[in-house]
């Protein structure tokens, strides 16, 4: 339970962090809240040569409104998101998702950026940022670039982040009009990770029908994904029980579901269908 030897740097600015990373592209790792990386290091599954701690850069933790966007700094903790009055008012999916993560100690230290950059197949944030159609701002030696959440998650623990790049900010378009959101999760009883997690963002027309639906799914495949089959089937319906149940059957379309000691692929897919249905119903009930 003692990590292999490593060097540690706590830069004061993000620019400094980027140049530190560039000094050792293979051996350096970014440390934010440390709730995925440190356990892996203690088990010696990860043995980075250098940790670049961005968790101490104060200006990287923020939640603010800017024009029609919500901007969230990468090292904002789960607890800060969970307890944000602003988010509870304008984008309640984020606090709801934050509330479901791990335990209070994890939420006090773990960060939204760390979770997204790690791309754990059962992480909660990937589902939420997919459902919200977020843009992710990455900074590297050549400056900033923006990637859509949908293009960011590549595979198991693999993202579009290139060596030397750091996730800096999450940008979400402020939900407008009549919308409803919900996050439904089956937590693993020991770890709290999502066996399945379903994030839903619905936009409704004046007549109460579903104008558009965005569904982010985590825990089921090797990476979080948008359930396009469910979204297509739901759009244009009046979101009654039949339409919801029919749409939910598409949640595993095209996905080879994960299988482990706790849940077989078949069981996981069943759970995903049940909880997609419940998440859509909850989102409908939350319409404001």
């Amino acid at each position, binding site marked *: 339970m003692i990590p292999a030897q490593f060097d540690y740097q706590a830069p004061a600015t993000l620019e400094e962090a980027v140049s530190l990373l560039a000094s050792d592209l293979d051996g350096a790792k970014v440390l934010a809240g440390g709730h995925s990386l440190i356990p892996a290091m203690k088990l010696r599954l990860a043995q980075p040569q250098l940790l670049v701690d961005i968790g101490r850069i104060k200006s990287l933790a923020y939640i603010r409104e800017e024009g029609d966007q919500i901007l969230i700094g990468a090292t904002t903790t789960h607890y800060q998101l969970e307890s944000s009055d602003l988010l509870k008012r304008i984008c309640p999916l984020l606090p709801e998702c934050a509330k479901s993560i791990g335990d209070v100690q994890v939420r006090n230290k773990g960060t939204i950026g760390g979770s997204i950059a790690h791309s754990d197949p059962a992480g909660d944030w990937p589902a939420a940022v997919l459902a919200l159609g977020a843009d992710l701002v990455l900074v590297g030696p050549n400056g900033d670039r923006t990637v859509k959440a949908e293009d960011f998650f590549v595979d198991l623990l693999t993202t579009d982040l290139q060596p030397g790049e750091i996730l800096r900010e999450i940008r979400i378009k402020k939900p407008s009009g009549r919308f409803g959101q919900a996050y439904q999760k089956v937590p693993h009883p020991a770890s709290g990770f999502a066996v399945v997690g379903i994030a839903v963002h619905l936009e409704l027309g004046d007549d109460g029908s579903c104008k558009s639906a965005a569904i982010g799914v985590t825990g089921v495949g090797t990476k979080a994904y948008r359930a396009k089959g469910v979204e297509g089937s739901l759009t244009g319906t009046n979101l009654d029980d039949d339409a919801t149940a029919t749409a939910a059957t598409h949640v595993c379309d095209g996905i080879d579901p994960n299988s482990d000691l*706790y849940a077989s692929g078949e069981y996981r897919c069943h759970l995903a269908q049940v909880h997609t249905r419940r998440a859509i119903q909850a989102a409908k009930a939350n319409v404001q």
Partner: protein
Amino acid sequence: MKLEGTHQLDAPRERVYQCLVDPEVLQRCIPGCERLEKTAENTFAATIRTGVGSIKGVFNGTARLEDLREPEHLRIVVDGKGTPGFLKGSGDLDLEQGENGTKVSYSGDVQVGGTIASVGQRMIQGTAKMMATQFFTSLGAEAATAVGEPPPQHGFFRTALRWFSGWLRSIFRKH
């Protein structure tokens, strides 16, 4: 753990088979394979440095080919040990000639133990699938070249893309 899957390769069955039993080709195709030596007839010793995300490890082990029925079937038996744990198992590979190439079906049973199994159990299957895809993609590229032709550069497109996007960004930054 059971592993199963199929991959479609754009090459004739005989060529795919030759690639599967050629240690040089295998070394280029197995993700992170640093060393693959023939130690006896159909037996190989290998060192593989591989991982996903920040999780990395070095494995040393042996692989034995059995039940060779060219060009349709072979069985591979592996036994390996490394920093994050050990693995042991065997798998059958069946090659089927189709109209536009070869369908490779694999099915195997692998036991994984040690740290990786006790804490990473929920990710083992996903990792295995990801590596199988990488392996068969590289193998497909190898098999698509004629015998004697220089081997394809598996990392080339990725490197080129990275360089190109970096270049594009540096241009846009100037304006």
